Every structure is written in structure tokens, then in C-alpha cells.
């Protein structure tokens, strides 16, 4: 059977240099694409392979010759004869500071890659002082834009607060949120069009929230879990994973991943089942699937319990 192959519009190649090395990438590529094409590793946090870059975290900044400030590699398009430095002193300094500022204000304990980057950039988040006490539930959500109480400077303020645990399927631990905007974009017009969450508040007190900080069951949430799929820090987590981590039984070494086809309807979404000790512990979806790009609905994402529940009679 022959299938048509989409080749797209032919694109001109752009020539530039990354750390002195020539790169040739199609026009419209980002600096990040160009770096990847020559195997240069650029750390990213808020960048999502299935989403429009928000360039909010600034950990991917690079130095472009002639530019006044550093530029985000994830969103800036590469141009002809652009000269990019990914490891200059300025770049290393800003990346280090971003890692330290995040590390000192957010719980990054479940963020992949952080330990390695901290070492690479010599980031020591603890040098801003001991962490302030976490806020009580609802305190951060109630803060008003443009107002805060000036502290005494002895502790480093954080975004930590109790876990929001208001439904059976997943938990929201906004103490781990780096404000990458990815869950909001995945819930909103980029994928799900449910718009259950948005960014509320301003500045350091900004956070991801439903309207009026309603509990998820009262909100527009449809539990597709696409926000969990894109969350880079584990702030959004399957209840199964959350509980196993609490119990200390979560062990990724012991997990296997099997990609299969969801059986609920005829769309044929791919689901990747994460199985530990013969139990499904969470479900993801391959981002390179041309139809779903890693998105699922509530059934594919959370409707796996029947597999492991045997009838008792």
C-alpha cells in the first residue's frame, strides 16, 4: 500500500555559527534547533516540544553577537550569519542565576536534569539563605497584585505551599511550579481548549489557578491530564505516583514502559503505560505521534484501572 508523503514547502537553508562551528539549518529554525543539529546541549525547562515557546524560564539563553541582551534559544529564530555563543561567561552566569533563583524559591526535587545542571553551572541555590516557611493553604492565592509585606531579609522567600489535593486522579503541588505556562497552554487554545486554568496574580505571587481558585471538580477541568504530560517539574502528578512517592515505593528503575493503542474509541491514540511491579502507575503518550502529539483524554490517561482490578466473585 502506498501512502502519500507530505514533504512540505522546500525551505532555504540558513548559515550561522554556534560556538564557532558552522551550522546549516532550514530557515525558520530556532537557535535551539541549530544547537541540537550540531550536538550542543542547551538546558531547557519551560520549553515544550509540542507547544509554542513562552521563553519564560530563561535557562536556555545564549549570546548572539551584536545583541544587547541575551536571547532565548528556544524561541529566537536563527538568521543568516548569526554568531551564537552558548557557553560564554555571560551565558554561564545567567544560566547559573536562573538555576539558583529557581532552586531557592521552588521545590525542584522532582525536576529531571536539575542536579546535573547545578553542577555544570556551579549553581548553589542555598546561598540566598535559609528557605522561608511555606505559605499556608490559600494564602498565596489570596495575595493581591502589587502588594507585599517587606520581610526582614533573613530567609529566602519561596513559592512553597501545601499540595492541592482535591480530586481522585491527580494532585497539584504548586510549591514545585516554575511558572513555565505549559499546563495553561496545553489546557487552553494550543491543545485541549478547556481553559480550566490560567495564570492569576502578578509577579512573585503569580500562580496557576482556576477561576477564584475553585477546586478542580468545580472548575472546567475535564481530567485529560495533558497538563501533567507537559509539566516539567512534577508539580502536576498522577495520584498513583504521588502516593507511591509519599510511601517511598516509587522507583523508576523498576519501571517498564510499553506503548500501545488506547482501546476506548476509534481514534487510536498511543498510550505509554508505565508499569512497576506489574501495576500501571501512570500513563503518558508519545509526543511524536502525528495525530495526538502526546495528548489524551480522561479515558486514555486515567481509565486504566480495569486492567489491574480483577472481579472478586
Amino acid at each position, binding site marked *: 500500500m502506498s501512502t502519500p508523503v507530505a514533504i512540505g514547502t522546500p525551505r532555504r537553508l540558513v548559515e550561522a555559527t554556534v560556538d564557532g562551528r558552522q551550522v546549516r539549518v532550514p530557515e525558520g529554525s530556532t537557535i535551539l534547533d541549530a544547537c541540537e543539529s550540531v550536538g550542543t546541549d542547551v538546558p531547557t525547562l519551560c520549553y515544550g516540544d509540542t507547544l509554542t515557546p513562552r*521563553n519564560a524560564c530563561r535557562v536556555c*539563553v545564549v549570546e548572539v553577537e551584536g545583541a544587547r541582551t541575551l536571547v532565548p534559544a528556544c524561541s529566537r529564530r536563527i538568521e543568516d550569519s548569526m554568531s551564537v555563543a552558548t557557553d560564554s561567561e555571560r551565558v554561564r*552566569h545567567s544560566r547559573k542565576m536562573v538555576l539558583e533563583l529557581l532552586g531557592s524559591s521552588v521545590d525542584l526535587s522532582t525536576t529531571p536534569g536539575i542536579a546535573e545542571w547545578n553542577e555544570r553551572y556551579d549553581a548553589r541555590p542555598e546561598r540566598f539563605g535559609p528557605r522561608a516557611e511555606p505559605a499556608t493553604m490559600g494564602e498565596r492565592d489570596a495575595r493581591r497584585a502589587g502588594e507585599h509585606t517587606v520581610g526582614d*531579609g533573613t530567609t529566602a522567600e519561596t513559592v512553597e505551599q501545601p499540595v492541592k489535593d482535591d480530586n481522585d486522579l491527580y494532585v497539584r503541588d504548586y510549591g514545585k511550579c516554575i511558572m513555565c505556562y505549559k499546563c495553561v497552554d496545553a489546557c487552553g487554545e494550543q491543545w485541549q*481548549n478547556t481553559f480550566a486554568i490560567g495564570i492569576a496574580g502578578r*509577579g512573585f505571587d503569580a500562580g496557576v489557578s482556576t477561576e477564584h481558585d475553585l477546586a478542580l471538580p468545580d472548575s472546567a477541568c475535564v481530567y485529560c491530564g495533558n497538563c501533567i504530560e507537559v509539566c516539567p517539574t512534577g508539580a502536576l502528578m498522577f495520584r498513583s505516583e504521588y502516593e507511591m512517592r509519599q510511601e517511598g515505593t516509587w522507583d523508576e528503575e523498576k519501571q517498564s514502559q510499553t506503548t500501545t493503542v488506547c482501546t476506548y474509541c476509534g481514534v487510536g491514540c498511543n498510550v505509554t503505560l508505565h508499569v512497576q511491579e506489574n501495576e500501571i502507575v501512570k500513563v503518558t503518550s508519545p509526543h511524536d505521534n502525528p495525530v495526538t502529539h502526546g495528548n489524551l483524554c480522561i479515558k486514555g490517561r486515567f481509565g486504566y484501572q480495569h486492567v489491574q482490578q480483577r472481579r472478586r466473585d
Partner: protein
Amino acid sequence: MDLHFLDAVPEDAEREAVDAVLGPPDSGWDGGTRHASDLRFAEGGHVARGRRDLLLPALHAVNDRVGWISRAALDYICRRLTIPPAEAYGVATFYAMFALERRPRRVVHVCTDIACAAKDSASLCAQMRERAGGPGGDDGEFTWHESPCLGLCERAPAAVSLQAGDPPRYSVAAPARAGEIIPEPGEVPAGDTPAAPAADGHGAPGDSHGPPLGGGRPQRRTTFSPDTLPGPAPEPPPHAAVPQAGDPDLVLLRRIGVVDPTSLDDYRANGGYAALREAMRLGPSGVIREVADSGLVGRGGAAFPTGRKWDATAKRPETPRYVICNADESEPGTFKDRVLMEGDPFAVVEALTIAGYANNAAVGYIYIRGEYPRALWLLENAVELARERNLLGTDILGSGFDFDIEIRRGAGAYICGEETAIFNSIEGLRGEPRSKPPFPVERGVFGKPTAINNVETLVNVLPIVLHGGPAYASVGTGRSTGPKLFCVSGAVERPGVYEVPFGADLRALMEMCGGAGTGPDGAQRLPRAVLLGGAAGGFVRGDELDIPLTLEGARDAGATLGSGVILVLDDDVDLTAILVRIAAFFRDESCGQCVPCRVGTVRQEEALVRLSRETGARDTDLALLREVGDAMRDASICGLGQTAWNAVESAIDRLGAFGPQEESTR
């Protein structure tokens, strides 16, 4: 789009306020009463969604009428405009002037920013605390907040009171005393009570609801009642802030104090609208040529050549194009745009019309900050009168050019003065800056080419068009051409807005405003420090008065003119407290989008608190500040983060704010 709403029913007043902006709902589909006939058709939400830009005006309408935005009111706005409630909540909570919890009708904003702090706003706040409890408290009658700069720096310390109602009312107290900004018991009405008709007739009920405007939407002529709240002494006229008022050599301030800012006839009798006629004679490209030849650069702080901006916008193939007047003047210590808008509002309208003509734009927006009720009132009046006389609308002056101006009011967000944040704010999104490129000339508001200029920049266009670009360019030095306004405040004899040709030095300006006064020995005092360019600018020492007030001169001296702030501090001022205030300002006003600014401004404030209280290791904290500052400057998305460390850095390096430093720290 299948939106999920709350089952909350808005109060009549809330519904009325929203309907006054959006018009009555057509059917059950957009928030009206559901009839059986509604079920026979489904109106798409596209039409409503296309009016997303009315979200901010609708939020204002409710907040103005009721004093806060209830769940039901937000829900009703969302239904009317087909906006997801989570998004609208995100927008409403972005702005400091909106409340989403019940609060009294009267809100008093007490300025504690740099200029007011230098004039002892601390004791004003202490009195407020004593008599009315802490900020945000609620005694049923009113609540008060500490506020960032209210743009009343020449009369510091300042306070602005806003009272919700139909129509909302305001008062400005500057210099403010606690006694006059705290309302008498029973003074604040509990429910909706129409204000008494004002003497000039503008506030009369019959008058206040004019004919339907702007697509059949019923609108009041002006947002605020001209009948100000009782309490503080009447606000002095705009020209009281212009010590040079009446000087025939003035260019930008020429009409201030000379014309009646409410009268179009008076404006025309004083040369008004001659520039628009001349512009129409020159043609759009002729106007851009004159502006380019004039060498005019933006006066908002970035100093980008206006001619190049217009040329690039006008050449874009996409239509419609937009022009925006950035009147979100919020840089601490800046009040020149307020004085221009209050003293000569028609000039702003005329200049924006010329900008619209040159760029062939269909609509112009004036985005004015929410803390300027009098300027808003005067501009609304000016736009209305211009519209009545066909100086706005279709076929202006018989030229075939169609153009109209919409005024959009900010709601307490410094960041919305950033040019791309304004676009998001106008479009009904959170006022977060966009990343550039693409630049506004390519993709601005509503994704279309947009020329956005500061109020002062636009007002400069009038003399350029009238007298020609080369004549304008002959004033000033080098890249700095034409006249420049400076906002002088703090420890000087005669604070106010001063117009000088580019080229004068700081000393000359200090002499114009009477200097920093005389000491006990009768000798002229040297200021301790001068803040140039506002919180995003930097300090210079009191003995550095030879700095030329030109773009090049300031840059060579390692300073910036920014928005023209000259805030003079004497020895009585606690400099470290001012630095902590600046850090708090940037922390409060950061939009929170990017990490360097969102967290960096917090760490900067913490380190400054430690330094000011001498509780930490000084050298470690100074090094920490520098490291955080460098990252904010280098890696933030927009100018707010990039400049958040400027003033602190200059205070450390130039003023030695925390003592001498070892060379090795750099």
C-alpha cells in the same frame, strides 16, 4: 468552545454596569434571559470573542460601579464576551486596582513611592494606620492602600481617593493630610446614589448619558463625575505644576495655563488643529519625512527615532494599522504626561490624529494609567468634542481620512507602560510583555503593524509639522534635538515640569527650580543625590551637576535621562530606605513571567533589607546583588527586569550607599 460558568446571578447594578459597556445581551446565548426562541438557533461565540478587548473596560465598569468584582459579575462578563472564567480571573487579578473580594466603595491610594517617601509619606501612613487601621483594612466606609507613584510628585506626599458609584467619583489630595482623605462617618453612601449635578452641567443626569456612541453602545460622556469628593482642598489647575507657564518661548507647554483644557474653541483659537491641516497638506509621507528630519526620538525612555518607527509602520503591507498613545506614565517621579494631558488635552488628541494620518491607521488608542482620573476626564471630554466637530470620525476635515480614538484605562500595573504589554492589556489579556522580535511595527496590537509613542513624543509632532523638521532639529545638540520636559521633584524650591531645549546641564535646571534651598548658614545647599530617569534610571551625586541633560551627555556620564525624572534628595532622606522602596516597587510591578525578574527582584529586595539593617555579611550581599542584577539585566524578557537593578547599582557604585567597596568585587 464549551465554556464552564458558575451558577451565580449578578446584581442588577453589576449587570447594568457591564451592559453599559457592551450593550444589552441579544439572547440567552450571551448572558441574557433565555427564551424558547433561543433554542431554535445557536449564535456562534465568534462575534463575542472578537470583542475580547472589551474585557478590561467591562471589569472597570463593575469595579467603578460596585467597588469590587464579584464572582457573579465576572461570570456575567465572561458569558457576554465568551471568555473562559479562568482567563478572565487571571486578567482581573493582574491589576492592582481591581478587587475580587468585597470591599468598601471608597478606596484611598496613598503614594509611598520615591518622591513621596522623600516628602515623608511614612508619617502620613502612620497617621492613617493610627486612625483607620492598617492598609487593606475595612471599616465599612473606606479602605486604603499604599500605592506606587501616583504621578503627583510635585505636590508630594499624594493620595488619590476613588469612590465607586454611578458615576464614580474621585478626589486628589496633594499634599495630603490624613484628616482630609479619611471620609467623615456616613459620607460614603452604602448603595448606588447618583452624584449631585455639577455646576458646569457635565454631571447632570440628563447630560451624563449622551447619545449612543461607538457602535450604538450607550456610554457616559466621561467616566468620572467632575464633581470631586469632599475632603481635600480643590486640586490646583494643571498649570500650577508648570512654573514656566505663560512663557511665550515654550513649545510643548505653550498652551498650558493659557487655554481652557475643556474647550475645543479655546484650543483652536490658540493655534490648535493648525498642525493637522498642515499635515494633510503635506500628505502622510510628507509628515513622516518631517518627523524623520526633525531627529525626534521617543521621550518615554528608550529614545528610539520616531521617524524610523513611523516609516517602518507605514510601509507594512498589513492592514488595519494602529497608532497608540502610551499614556501609562508610571515611572516613579514622572508626571510630565499627566500635566500635558490635563493642561492641553486637545494637543494629545490632535497629535495622535496626525500619527494616525501619517501611518494610515484606522484606530488610535490612548492607553492612560488608572491613577489619573482628572487626565482621563479631560481626555474623554476632548475626544468627545473632537468627534462632534468631525475632527475625529469619518472624512476628517473633508480630507477623506477616517480615524477615531478609543481611550483605554489601565488598572494599576506599571508593566503596562511597556509597549508590548500595552498591546496585551488592550486586547484583554494579562499585561505581560511579549518577546521581541517581532517588533510592534511588524506585529503590534491585534497582531497588526502598530506605531506606539509616548504622550510627550506625540506632542512634539505638532511643532515639527507646523514649522518643519529642520527647524526643530536646529534646537538641541547632536542626536538630542528639540525641547525636552523634565519632571523635577524632591528637595527643590519649585518642583514641577520644566521645558528646556536639549543641551542645558543639570546645574542650569537646578537653578531654574530654585535649587535645593539654603542651609542653616544661608549658603546654597548641594543636594545629596539626584535620581535621573526614575526607578529604572540611576543616581548621580550632588556634586555632579555638570552632567549635560542630553541623551549623549547622560550616557557618557553613565546615567540616563529615561523619562525625564529629576528627583532631588537631600541629606534628610534615608537613602537605604529609598533603595528598599525601589526594590519593593520592582518586586510589586514585575509581571512574573520570566525567572530573572520574578525571583531576582525578590532576592534583590531581601539583600537590600539585610544591607539596610546591617544584619548580613555586607560584602557577600553586595556581591549577591551584583550577580542577581547582572542576570536580570542580561536575561529578562523586557525593560522592567533589565532596568530593575540600575538605580540600586548606581547608589552602591556612585553614592557609596553601603560604604566603600573593595575593588575586587567587580
